[in-house]
């Protein structure tokens, strides 16, 4: 089976090509099913890989499959080679499994759109790129996948490019990600320069070669992580990315692509562990992002934006987890989060579908009567997000917080505070749209439950959101054991289970979650004036939160505008105005040269020649001085 691992990449590629070439003549629904089938076949391959790997002894669960030689220069060997180990298989299962459900949902969701063919081609392309990223055995192939998912994300965010905001959002996402990719490219080169290797397993074996400059390298990698996984300081693109179709938000901007950063840290854990400074920074960024994004999620009124900030916040938790060395806890949260966040987005999409694109939760209310299935699945997902036991989020978040406690109490405290806020805003996201009385009669009248092709995926995801937490029960963590061989060679503290104290902590966080839920219920169901009063008491902080801490404005002022102006200066001022000035100054020279030629000259040529001459003088000066 392991030798057929390449099939997992082949199926999305086939789906993509089929729809690309034949899509013009196919019915929209058929296109959707072709794409979904392709992903489902990949899922079957992933399952097969899982069992094939499981049949091997625990310390031998590692298989590399060479497809073809790609780039070879001296020692530098980047091949198209897959790495199948527990970590990549877990990721592969998530990507293909949840990806499949979202594809099926999208068949219903995209019905009637003008560009269904393009949508599914892009979606399959995304799956292909994501699987490349996950199964790559070296940095270079990973980078290909990394850029590929970035491209897919850009194309899908701007899918409805008729809306200027969507086009802008796509561009923003791409550019912000380029900043991160820049770090990635440098890090890869640096790693290669020091170790002479680009394959993960080789690097891990000779990781000491990187030790002298590990901090710089990991900081560059961290830059890439913050870009892709939307962490401080590069998180700004993700909320805008909600301009894309909702299945895209669910698949790319919640369940899979944005967690690639977490995967990257886990995959290169050996390098990260060389630098305690970076690890601390990773954990700090994680917890601070989790906290800030949660504050912003509390203030949003757009359902998808609430979820977007919540995603940033939850990825913050994962980053926090891997930052304190609890790699399997981070991956565990990644898995559970993929289920419940995808479900939340799909639920939001169903609401949006029913409401003709309306997402302002202040206009909703009482929807549970109209859309009972959406309501129940959404509620399950929200409970998982809030971390209410026994839903999935509870176990994974708790495992992270427990590891954090052993590492740094203040981070744990901030994490716990964030857990409170998470419970608060998830409750709000359920209570305001679904319960109470309808706020906008007209919209409410038109709302209806969505079709089966959309509700079935919702329920399947709901099962995952409810029960996937059981994979990681404390002390008998299946996922922990499964992933253990990947991280076995690393020396880590923090993941050891800690007896009765851990149970006390679980109780504590349950209380915090209940408090959050209770507060939100009070604020939005019992005393609806409370949110207004509370916000007024916050003063300017409320203003800050409402404006997302003014980070976008800051970036525009500090980075974007200066660069733009500089480019404008070169193109306009230097190449035109300075030239004109110089030409006027040089007019007498051209005058001397002669009237006849002058008629033919536009004047600019004189300057061009002058520039050429100037360059020649500089070069002459340099060479004659240094010779």
């Amino acid at each position: 089976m392991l030798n057929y691992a390449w099939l997992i990449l082949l199926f999305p590629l086939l789906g993509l090509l089929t729809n690309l070439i034949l899509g013009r003549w196919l019915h929209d629904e058929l296109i959707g099913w072709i794409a979904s089938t392709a992903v489902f076949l990949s899922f079957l391959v992933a399952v097969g890989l899982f069992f094939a790997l499981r049949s091997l002894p625990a310390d031998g669960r590692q298989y590399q499959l060479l497809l073809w030689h790609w780039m070879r220069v001296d020692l530098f060997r980047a091949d198209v080679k897959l790495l199948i180990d527990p970590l990549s298989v877990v990721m592969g299962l998530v990507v293909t499994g949840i990806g499949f459900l979202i594809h099926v949902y999208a068949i219903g969701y995209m019905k009637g759109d003008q560009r269904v063919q393009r949508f599914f081609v892009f979606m399959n392309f995304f799956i292909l790129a994501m699987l490349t990223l996950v199964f790559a055995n070296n940095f270079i192939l990973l980078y290909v996948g990394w850029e590929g998912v970035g491209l897919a994300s850009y194309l899908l965010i701007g899918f409805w490019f008729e809306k200027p905001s969507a086009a802008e959002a796509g561009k923003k996402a791409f550019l912000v990600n380029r900043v991160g990719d820049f770090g990635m490219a440098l890090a890869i080169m640096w790693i290669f320069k020091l170790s002479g290797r680009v394959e993960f397993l080789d690097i891990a074996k000779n990781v000491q070669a990187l030790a002298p400059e590990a901090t710089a390298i990991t900081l560059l990698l961290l830059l890439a992580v913050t870009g892709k996984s939307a962490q401080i300081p590069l998180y700004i693109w993700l909320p805008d990315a909600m301009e894309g179709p909702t299945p895209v938000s669910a698949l790319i901007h919640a369940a899979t692509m944005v967690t690639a950063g977490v995967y990257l840290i886990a995959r290169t854990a050996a390098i990260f562990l060389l630098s305690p400074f970076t690890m601390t920074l990773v954990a700090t960024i994680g917890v601070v992002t989790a906290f800030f994004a949660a504050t912003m999620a509390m203030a949003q009124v757009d359902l998808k934006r609430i979820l977007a900030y919540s995603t940033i916040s939850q990825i913050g938790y994962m980053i926090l987890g891997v930052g304190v060395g609890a790699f399997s806890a981070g991956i565990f949260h990644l898995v559970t989060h993929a289920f419940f966040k995808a479900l939340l987005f799909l639920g939001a999409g169903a609401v949006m579908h029913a409401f003709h694109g309306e997402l302002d939760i202040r206009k909703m209310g009482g929807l549970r009567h109209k859309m009972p299935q959406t309501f129940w699945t959404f509620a399950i997902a929200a409970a998982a997000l809030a971390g209410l036991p026994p839903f999935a989020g509870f176990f994974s978040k708790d495992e992270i917080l427990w590891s954090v406690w052993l590492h740094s109490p203040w981070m744990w405290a901030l994490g716990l505070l964030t857990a409170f806020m998470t419970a608060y805003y998830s409750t709000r996201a359920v209570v305001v749209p679904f319960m109470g009385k309808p706020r906008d009669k007209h919209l409410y009248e038109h709302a209806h439950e969505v079709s089966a092709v959309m509700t079935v995926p919702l329920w399947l995801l709901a099962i995952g959101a409810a029960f996937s937490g059981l994979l990681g029960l404390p002390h008998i963590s299946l996922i922990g054991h499964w992933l253990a061989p990947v991280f076995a060679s690393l020396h880590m503290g923090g993941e050891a289970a800690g007896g009765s104290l851990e149970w006390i902590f679980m109780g504590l966080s349950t209380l915090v979650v209940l408090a959050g839920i209770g507060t939100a219920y009070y604020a939005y169901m019992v005393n609806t004036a409370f949110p207004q009063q509370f916000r007024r008491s916050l003063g300017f902080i409320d203003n800050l939160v409402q404006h997302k801490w003014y980070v976008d404005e800051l970036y525009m002022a500090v980075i974007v505008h200066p660069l733009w102006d500089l480019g404008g200066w070169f193109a306009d001022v230097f190449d035109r105005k300075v030239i004109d000035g110089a030409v006027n100054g040089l007019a007498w020279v051209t005058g001397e040269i002669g009237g006849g030629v002058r008629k033919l000259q536009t004047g600019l040529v004189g300057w061009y020649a002058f520039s050429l001459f100037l360059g020649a003088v500089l070069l002459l000066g340099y060479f004659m001085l240094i010779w």
Partner: protein
Amino acid sequence: MTITLPSISLLPYLPEIVLLITALLVLVIDTFAGEKRWLVWLALLGTIVAGVTTWSLSLGPTLYLQDMLAADPYALFIDMVVLIITAISLLLAYDWLNSHAHQQGEYVALLLFSAVGMMTMGAATNVITIFVALEILSLSLYVLTGFARERLTSGEAALKYFLLGAFASAFFLYGVALLYGATGHFDLVGIGKNMAGTGLMAAAGVALLLVGFSFKVALAPFHMWTPDVYQGAPTSVTAFMSVGAKAAGFAAFLRFFHVALAGSYATWGPALAALAVLTMTWGNLAALNQESVKRMLAYSSIAHAGYALVGLAAGNALGMSGLLFYLLAYAFMNLGAFGVIIMLEKKGSGDLSMSALRGTAREHPLLAATMAVFMFSLAGVPPLAGFFGKFYVFGAAVKANMTWLAIVGIINSAISAYYYLRVSVLMYMVEPDENTTDVATNNRPVLAFALLVALVFVIGIGLWPGIWMQMAQQAAALLG
């Protein structure tokens, strides 16, 4: 008295000779033929025959014509690149030529003459031969630039190019004279051997030669002509010269510095690195705000000259082969990009504004996707050809302990993503203007075929760069 003729073997020069004969045939047949369409096909046949000849030539450091030229793998690699460029350029020009019926023969012949000059540049092992080749290539390009006689900008561009080109040639020739004065040699090996202990005269000679080369490949601050000329020239000519002249210029540039000046790398390495930084930064920043796509691509080509120069400035084997690889990759992606412009430009305008790109994806989805691939490749997005070009030259810089140079290059590619991406954004994500939809893209199978070839290579080189890199390595190996 008996006259002993020098033993002349023209066999290694056969590819060039084939092209020359084809060009002459085209000229003569053109004057008789009523149907001129197939002149392009005749030229293409000649190009293919020349290509086959190139392949069948034996590899080895063969010097011929009194050691004026070499038929080494390096020269053959450049031959191959130039022939590919020529073939695609002929196809790109096909439709435009059919609307300029009287002048087809001249256009095709000049293109072939210019290609002969380019190939000779790659083979030249003597500064005089380099100069002659440079002139053959340039003179043809001056005329081609002014070929769209109905447009004033075309004539203006030709005149500017000619005046400045002559100016730069003078610098180059002066440099040749000074080098001869200092070393007593014209041939590169001889110059190299006698370089030790030379004084200011040699230094001045090298500087002036560098001016000549820099002009030809458009390095800042010798690039001023590029935007005007690229914009004014017929687009098919722009496509040809943007890649062909650059490839040929760099070919001679590289050979000169690595053969004649191998010993004084410490002197010229930093100078080239500084030029590279200046060039790519200037090109990229100026490209950010352009309204004409051709002008944007002109500045972009300046930036790419800067990237390629990084390979030369690195001064190691990887840098050399990386540069050769870069020239090949750049040829395909830039020809493709200009090909799309030819597809989209309005008849007779000879230019394409950014705003005319708006929403073209709706009516021409395949064309827009093709353009996107070329733009991504130019921006250096893996796994396309352009990425590997940058990858190799920047890698060479790192290997040569010039990591800072690689970093500057990467920052520059990040900046360049903005304007390349803008093209795709406009094509895909903006509503079309009502008055820019009269684009006749249908019914041009020749042009579409040329685009397809470029596309296949841009993707193919990206997926299997190893094969091409191996060729580039073999080519560069003999230079040491």
